[in-house]
Structure formats: structure tokens, C-alpha cells
């Protein structure tokens, strides 16, 4: 993966290179094949040697102004022309324009009798003539090993081949020599002995009934090159080799944030959602709401006016539209507006490389800002798990370079450990949401949490969410003794809390009433006491008045007694009067 050393720009030191024009190959080789030297392309039958060689010539002739000679040992020029027409190469036209020369060399053993010494000067003459007639800079010999079948004198052949390659170098043409892979050797007749500057090996393997073509630079003298096996494919545009792009991880990063489409989920992601150009992985068990979240994300993108590419490996567009409508997400208007494009196919329809190529192509054509792949684990079915990982790595790198926010969903088995995905790509993604079914109180409820989200302070809470007729809705958090409460447990808790609140309310009201009553009682008592006091006061007044009255009566009586006794009543009266006054 990232340890490959291919460079995107051709190094300007040392070796001159002839660009092949084959998509991706120039990146791996750091600019093309060694200029003026022969390159050996080897591989088993049907792996694309002839095609690679032909594309090298055609691209050279059409794009780089370098005419080429194709010396065919196996196919006639008519056959060749027909074979590559499907790739859009018009050899007849190129031949007419003197940009290409095809020479079919037929070596039939049963037509040839060998008597004594000979050399292959005839071949040299023909090649030389072809090269000179169009001023060729490129030469393809396909497959020169046929000579070994036609001529029996090995020592002559080997000597002549050595001379031929030397001669090609002296001639200064960039040559591609093809050879069939032998048993344990690169080529059946050891051509690699002669061609030592650059050797490219093609391979065509079938794994799990899915075929994959691969290309590897076995050696390339005097230059750095990618050393991995790179998958390649042959489609209507010729060969494209898919190098692991962004090997240096130098893609630009954005600080812009994009909404996940679910406001409360955005809140969990430090309030703003994902970073633009980041890769979001959503893992979850079956039916946990992965696709629904993806649909939300798609709608959010379309609402921002961004194009969204939706790869569905399990559902047809129609099915998706219907299912999403059931939860209140209507995708159809966006499809009609051309902002949302579905691409539904079974993952096993073709190999991983073809998938990757399809994605590359669609991305290039549609220019989306947002991409959804739902789900990615089915891709394992189109190759091995390892291949799928590699493919996804390349895909993620590609999307990051394009600054496309990617939304990948991944199905996990119920029993699988948390934090484990089928493809081990968890380390590549920026944001990882985990959807789970929590089993509690005899029911399953959906729970989401953010496992990781690079570069933001995300929530660490487990949140329950519901699929309502308005889409995904995150619920409030209720914590119980065993963690977050979900479903009816949450509802029960909600009810319980409501009951407690009501009870308290009632209590408060009761107390208030009691206080009121007490106050009333108190006030009543105050009134009563006051009344009592007033009564007492009245009594006291009455008493004192009585005393006063009786004293007056007593004084009058004494006066009258004195008067009657004719005593000095005045003195006594004065004294007696004084005494009660002091007592008071």
C-alpha cells in the first residue's frame, strides 16, 4: 500500500523515458519505459501483452508523435487490426498516415529446411526497412519467441537475439518485446537474459471465480519504480493500470464542515458534522439504520446543491427510493434534479478492479462532492478480503484527493467484536459511527455512538435513535443502572420521572395549603386572644371603677359619721384620704 515508491512526476535525472500513454503505467514507472532501450513484457497467454504493446505504439504515434513498428509473429496485421478495433484503435488509418507499420513474420517449421549455417539478417533487414520507412521511434516484437518454434538451431538463435537487442539499442528505438511466461521463469526461452533494462510482468489470476489482471515491474534499471502488483483492466479505452494513488498522503485537507443530515447527530460531532473530504464509516448489524443515515446524508448534500453519487450493492434504486420514502425521506426530487445519481449493481458482477475503475470513471464524469457506498462489505465477495482492503484503500485515497466526502456503510455480524470491520479499513476512515442493537427488557433498540472522529471533540455518548416517519431521530439520553436506557425502558424511565415530578408538585401544593390553614388558624387565635385581652381590660376597668365608687361612698359615710359625732372630722378625713392615695 503506502510503502510503494512510485512517483507521479518523472524524475529529471539520468534515464530518459518514453511515456507509454497507458493510464497509470507512466505513474508507476516514473515517466514511461526506458527510451532507446528494449523492455520485456512477459506474461501467460491472454494476459494482455499484445494489447499493452499495441497501446504503447498507438499512444506513441497519436499522442507523442513517435511512429512505431509492430512486428507480429503470431497474428497477421488483419487480425491485429480487428482485435484492437474494439478498443478504439484504428490501425489502418495509422498505417495510412505512416505513423504505424505492421510486419507479420511467419515462421513455419514445416516449411523450412535448415541446411548449414545461417543468421537472422533477414529479420534485421525487415525491421530496419520498416523503421526507416516511417521514421519509427518505437518497436514492438510480439512474440519473438515464436522463432524458437520455427528454427531449431538454438545456438544460432540465441546469438542472433543477443545481436538483435544490441542492434535495437544502437538503432535508438524504444522497444517492447513480449514473451510468454514459462515454468518458474519469466519467459519460456529466457528472453530476460537479453533484455535487462526493464521487465514488466503481466498476470491474469482467477480467485473465487473472479479474474483480476495484475501488472508488476520486475525490474527497471537505473530508476525508482513501484514494486507492487498493480491491478489493471482492459476496457473500451484500452488498458488502465491503477496505481495506489496518493502514496505520499499529500492531499489537501479542508476545514469546512458538512452536515450529516441529522441535526442531533451533527451535535454529537462537535456541533457541525463531518469534515469535507473526510471518509465516514458506518458499521452496524443488519437493520440498524445504516442506509437510512446514508439517505439523510445524501439529502443534506443535495440540499446544499452538491452532487451525490450513490453506489448501492444490495438494493435497486427503486427499492431504495421506496424504502426511504417510508421513513419520510424523499430522494426522488433530487434524482430528477440530477443532483443524486444511483449506481446499483451486485458486487460480484465483476472484479474489484473493475469496480474501482467504474467508480473512477463515474466520479470523473459526474464530479460529485459526496459519495455513498452501501455497503462495502459485499465487495469482499468480488475478491478476497485482502484485495477488498487494498481496493478500498485506493478508493479512499482517490476520494480524498478529489475532496469527496465519502459515506461508507459496513455490515457487521451480530457477534462480532466492536471495533472490527471486515476489511480492516477502520484505521483509514476519519469518522466512524457505530450503530448497534441494544437488547434490553425483551426488545431491541437502535443505538448510535461515535467511535472516533478525527480532528473534532465528538460526543462519547450512546444515543438511542428512532426511525420515525420524519427519518432518523436521536432521542434524549436516559441513564439507568445498566447504562443508557432505550426503548420502553426509556419510556418507563420517562414516565417514572414524570410521576416523581407530579408527586412533588402535589406535595408542594399540599404543604402550601397546610400553611395556609395554619396561618388562618393562627390568625383566628390572634383574634381570640385579642378578644380575651379586651375582655380582661374591660373587667379591670370595671373593677377599678367599682373600687373608686366604694371609696367615695366610704368617705361620705365617715364625713357623715363625724358630722353626726361632731368631731374634728376634717383632720381625720384629710389623713384617711391621703392613705388610699399612697397605696395606689
Amino acid at each position, binding site marked *: 500500500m503506502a510503502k510503494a515508491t512510485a512517483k507521479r512526476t518523472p524524475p529529471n535525472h539520468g534515464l530518459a523515458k518514453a511515456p507509454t500513454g497507458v493510464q497509470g503505467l507512466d505513474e508507476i514507472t516514473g515517466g514511461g519505459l526506458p527510451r532507446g532501450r528494449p523492455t520485456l513484457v512477459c506474461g501467460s497467454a491472454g494476459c494482455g501483452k499484445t494489447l499493452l504493446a499495441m497501446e504503447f505504439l498507438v499512444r506513441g504515434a497519436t499522442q507523442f508523435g513517435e511512429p512505431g513498428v509492430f512486428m507480429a509473429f503470431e497474428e497477421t496485421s488483419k487480425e491485429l487490426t480487428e482485435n484492437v478495433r474494439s478498443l478504439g484503435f484504428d490501425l489502418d488509418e495509422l498505417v495510412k498516415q505512416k505513423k504505424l507499420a505492421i510486419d507479420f513474420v511467419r515462421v513455419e517449421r*514445416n*516449411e523450412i*529446411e535448415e541446411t548449414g549455417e545461417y543468421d537472422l539478417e*533477414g529479420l534485421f533487414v*525487415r525491421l530496419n*526497412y520498416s523503421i526507416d520507412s516511417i521514421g519509427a521511434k518505437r518497436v514492438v516484437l510480439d512474440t519473438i519467441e515464436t522463432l524458437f518454434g520455427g528454427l531449431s538451431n538454438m545456438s544460432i538463435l540465441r546469438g542472433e537475439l543477443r545481436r538483435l537487442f544490441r542492434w535495437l539499442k544502437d538503432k535508438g528505438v524504444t522497444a517492447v518485446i513480449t514473451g510468454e511466461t514459462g515454468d518458474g521463469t519469466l519467459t519460456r526461452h529466457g528472453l530476460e537474459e537479453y533484455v535487462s533494462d526493464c521487465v514488466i510482468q503481466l498476470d491474469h489470476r482467477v480467485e473465487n471465480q473472479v479474474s483480476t489482471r495484475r501488472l508488476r515491474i520486475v525490474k527497471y534499471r537505473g530508476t525508482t519504480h513501484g514494486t507492487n502488483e498493480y491491478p489493471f483492466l482492459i476496457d473500451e479505452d484500452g488498458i488502465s493500470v491503477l496505481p495506489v494513488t496518493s502514496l505520499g498522503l499529500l492531499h489537501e485537507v479542508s476545514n469546512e464542515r458538512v452536515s450529516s443530515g441529522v441535526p442531533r447527530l451533527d451535535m454529537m460531532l462537535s456541533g457541525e458534522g463531518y469534515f469535507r473530504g473526510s471518509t465516514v464509516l458506518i458499521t452496524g448489524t443488519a437493520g440498524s439504520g445504516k442506509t437510512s443515515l446514508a439517505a439523510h446524508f445524501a439529502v443534506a448534500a443535495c440540499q446544499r446543491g452538491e452532487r451525490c453519487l450513490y453506489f448501492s450493492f444490495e438494493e435497486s434504486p427503486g427499492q431504495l427510493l421506496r424504502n426511504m420514502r417510508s421513513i419520510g425521506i424523499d430522494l426522488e426530487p433530487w434524482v430528477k434534479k440530477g443532483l443524486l445519481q444511483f449506481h446499483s449493481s451486485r458486487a460480484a458482477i465483476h472484479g474489484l478492479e473493475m469496480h474501482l475503475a467504474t467508480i473512477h470513471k463515474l466520479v470523473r464524469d459526474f464530479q460529485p462532492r459526496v459519495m455513498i457506498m452501501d455497503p462495502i462489505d459485499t465487495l469482499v465477495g468480488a475478491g478476497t478480503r485482502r484485495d477488498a482492503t487494498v481496493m478500498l484503500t485506493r478508493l479512499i485515497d482517490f476520494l480524498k484527493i478529489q475532496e469527496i466526502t465519502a459515506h461508507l456503510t459496513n455490515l457487521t455480524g451480530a457477534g462480532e467484536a466492536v471495533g472490527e470491520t471486515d476489511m480492516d479499513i477502520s484505521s483509514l476512515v476519519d469518522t466512524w459511527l457505530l450503530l448497534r442493537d441494544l437488547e434490553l427488557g425483551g426488545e431491541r433498540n437502535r443505538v448510535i455512538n461515535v467511535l472516533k472522529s478525527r480532528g473534532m471533540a465528538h460526543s462519547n455518548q450512546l444515543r438511542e435513535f428512532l426511525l420515525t416517519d420524519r427519518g432518523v431521530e436521536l432521542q434524549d439520553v436516559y441513564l439507568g443502572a445498566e447504562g443508557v436506557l432505550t426503548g420502553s425502558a426509556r419510556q418507563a424511565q420517562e414516565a417514572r420521572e414524570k410521576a416523581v415530578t407530579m408527586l412533588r408538585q402535589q406535595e408542594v401544593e399540599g404543604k402550601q395549603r397546610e400553611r395556609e390553614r395554619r396561618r388562618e388558624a393562627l390568625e383566628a387565635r390572634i383574634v381570640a386572644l385579642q378578644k380575651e385581652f379586651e375582655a380582661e381590660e374591660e373587667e379591670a376597668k370595671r373593677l377599678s371603677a367599682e373600687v373608686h365608687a366604694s371609696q367615695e361612698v366610704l368617705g361620705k359615710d365617715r364625713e357623715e359619721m363625724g358630722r353626726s359625732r361632731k368631731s374634728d372630722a376634717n383632720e381625720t378625713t384629710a389623713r384617711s384620704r391621703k392613705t388610699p392615695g399612697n397605696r395606689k
Partner: protein
Amino acid sequence: MRKSGISDGAKAHVTAPATEMFELRLYIAGQTPRSVTAFANLKEICEEHLSGRYKIEVIDLLLHPQLAAGDQIVAIPTLVRKLPEPLRRIVGDLSNTERALVGLQLRPVTQKDPTS
């Protein structure tokens, strides 16, 4: 040597009557010692076996390189028997007379070829 050679030879033995005209073309590339040897050997064989009914055309590919493709010349020297049909190619300097005669179908192939 080869099974096909055997049948060809057997057929030639029957179908090549002594009166047939032989049209031969010798391809060389410059006056190398090998071309000279080849021509000398060819002359000798023809004089001996095809006296009076053969025609030799020598083509120097250094002078006429465009002619090489037509007769599918790879090796030099190559002797092409244009006539009688079928077309035969004999590569090498013809120093092995026995093999040259087989190639020209002037002699049936022996069951066991001593030189192979």
C-alpha cells in the same frame, strides 16, 4: 526429424517429374562469405540434379529490403523454391547437400535423418 517433412517428401517424390521447371530464389544480405558459399553450393546442387531446368534469382536484401517481407524471409541465406508448388524454404548455406535435396524435394526423406 518431423512427421510433416516425411509426408511432404513422399508426396514430392511422386509429384515432381524430371521435366518440371524449378524456379529458385536465393535471398542474401550483402556479399558475405556465407552468401558466396550458399550460392556456390546451390549452383553445384542444381547442376547435378536439375541440369537445364532451373532458374536462380539472387536477391540482395541490402539493396532491396522491401522484398524480404513478401517471401517471409527471416534467416539469411534463405533459398525459396517458388516453383514447383508447394513453396519451400531452405535456410542456411546449403553445405549439407543431403538436407538441401530434401528441402528441394529432390529426394525423399529417409526414415531416420542422420543429422538431426
